[in-house]
């Protein structure tokens, strides 16, 4: 598949946004449970939510560049019953709205206790909004991932690992960002957040490497033989029927030499996992804001590369019909 930058940015930005929100809410939960020193001010949540919103909005804006007719984008919510894309289109704004309310509640200090759990824990509005937001964030991970994972013949994508990856990679980048952010805004939580970021990055690495290993062993189920219905071991396309290219030769081919694809793979393994792990290990315990910021930036760049590779490595069976175009 051809990696389209609007989609690369969409998925990486909202992934980081979702992760960041999950981090914010986790901090709040842990603080509530006393496992963590509560952030000194609500600004942590307020500015954090703004950051989440910025990331989600950035992704949303990027996604418009993917559309041929962005002015009709609103129509995309119509088919939520069948289309994961439609669901994503619904969940993303819902998440954004929730985050907005979550941030606003923190800003306004509007935290009326709604009810009290039997354990005596008072559940206030931010907790409810946070829980809702977290569920939406997970749902969004699921939707985004399922857009890819639900296509059975794109076998590189069609796997539960895709859902795991989107969730873990988004989570990892969000927590790394949260660590960097807290180093500025709530240094007291930084150590913990960085620890979680480290763990998530590690998990993401495991899941992503597992995917690489799985995909390396995939044998295409569609072959020239099944594509044409001709049983002969040697089938070569001699003409695709046109020579100047077409939608089908552009959309489904990354057009890069194999060398570049593997270089990108090495790059993302380094940038999305190895480097951030090292930087998190280095800067996390000390709460070193520049180091953690660097960790996020490096990881984000790595994830863009990862997403590029995610598309590039996916071999669409339609390409069997469009091998020979020059």
């Amino acid at each position: 598949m051809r990696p389209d930058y609007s989609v690369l940015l969409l998925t990486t930005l909202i992934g980081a946004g979702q992760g960041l929100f999950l981090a914010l809410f986790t901090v709040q939960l842990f603080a509530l449970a006393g496992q963590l020193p509560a952030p000194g001010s609500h600004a942590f949540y307020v500015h954090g939510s703004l950051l989440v919103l910025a990331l989600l909005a950035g992704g949303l804006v990027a996604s418009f560049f993917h559309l041929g007719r962005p002015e009709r984008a609103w129509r995309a919510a119509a088919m939520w019953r069948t289309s994961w894309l439609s669901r994503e289109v619904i969940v993303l704004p819902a998440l954004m709205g929730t985050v907005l309310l979550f941030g606003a509640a923190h800003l306004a200090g509007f935290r009326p206790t709604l009810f009290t759990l039997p354990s005596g824990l008072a559940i206030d509005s931010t907790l409810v909004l946070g829980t809702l937001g977290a569920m939406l964030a997970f749902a969004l991970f699921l939707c985004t991932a399922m857009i890819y994972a639900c296509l059975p013949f794109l076998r590189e994508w069609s796997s539960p690992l895709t859902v795991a990856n989107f969730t873990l990679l988004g989570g990892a980048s969000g927590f790394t960002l949260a660590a960097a952010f807290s180093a500025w805004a709530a240094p007291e939580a930084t150590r913990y957040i960085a620890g979680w970021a480290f763990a998530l990055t590690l998990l993401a690495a495991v899941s992503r490497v597992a995917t690489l290993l799985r995909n390396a062993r995939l044998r295409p189920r569609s072959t020239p033989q099944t594509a044409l219905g001709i049983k002969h071991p040697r089938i070569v396309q001699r003409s695709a029927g046109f020579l100047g290219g077409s939608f089908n030769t552009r959309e489904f081919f990354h057009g890069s030499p194999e060398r570049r694809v593997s270089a990108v793979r090495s790059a993302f393994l380094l940038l999305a996992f190895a480097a951030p792990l090292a930087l998190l290990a280095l800067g996390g315990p000390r709460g070193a804001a520049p180091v953690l910021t660097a960790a996020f930036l490096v990881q984000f760049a790595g994830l863009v590369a990862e997403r590029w590779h995610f598309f590039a490595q996916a071999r669409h069976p339609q390409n069997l019909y469009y091998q020979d175009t020059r």
Partner: protein
Amino acid sequence: MTQLALVIDLNVCVGCHACVTSCKEWNTSGSAGPLADTMPYGKDPSGAFFNRVQTFEVGEFPDTQTVHFPKSCLHCEDPPCVPVCPTGASYKRKEDGIVLVDYDKCIGCKYCSWACPYGARELDPVRKVMTKCTLCVDRIYDRTRPEAERKPACVLACPTSARLFGDIHDPQSQVSQAIRDNAGYALMPEWGTHPANHYLPRRRTSARIHEDELTRADNPLKVDGLLPRPPKSDPSLDDVMSW
């Protein structure tokens, strides 16, 4: 329930591309049009076509088969391109199984094209909406047209009649019979899309000559004195034996 479809006979398709340009021509000014072209007079001209004819070589010299392979949307009975569409622009008609795109709803997200394993959809480069074979829905129901011409443009154009059109759910239809009689098959059956369009394979007529057909009693060479009978005077068993 009706499922309209094309059945393409690879046994007679000579790869002439008549179906390709007649399709373009009909549809560019039709309800699906215009089908735009980019750089029509420049480098790498390219455009939206609903139908392509490709060529494959099967086997090795001298046992090579050259296969011309026309392909348009297969109007799958279980079309993966439809449920993924977020806007409902992609839909399958209940009444005849034609898979269509509503160009007024399509947002050009291309997701349906990713979901089609056959590469049958093309984004119109100007309108930026998804396009594909409509099975000439705007011809086949057009009552102003004589009955015989209520067929897709490509079907009527095809000089070899390699393109049959009809209802594959009607066992009596020409297409159903052609599929039955000639072992018609669907493409990429592994994905369970159940393409409505079918393909008929190459069929080879071979010749067998028996040795005894080469020498016959009425061989004309005899008339002209070749292959002569031996002279009666030559020795024969009659001269030495009596039973």
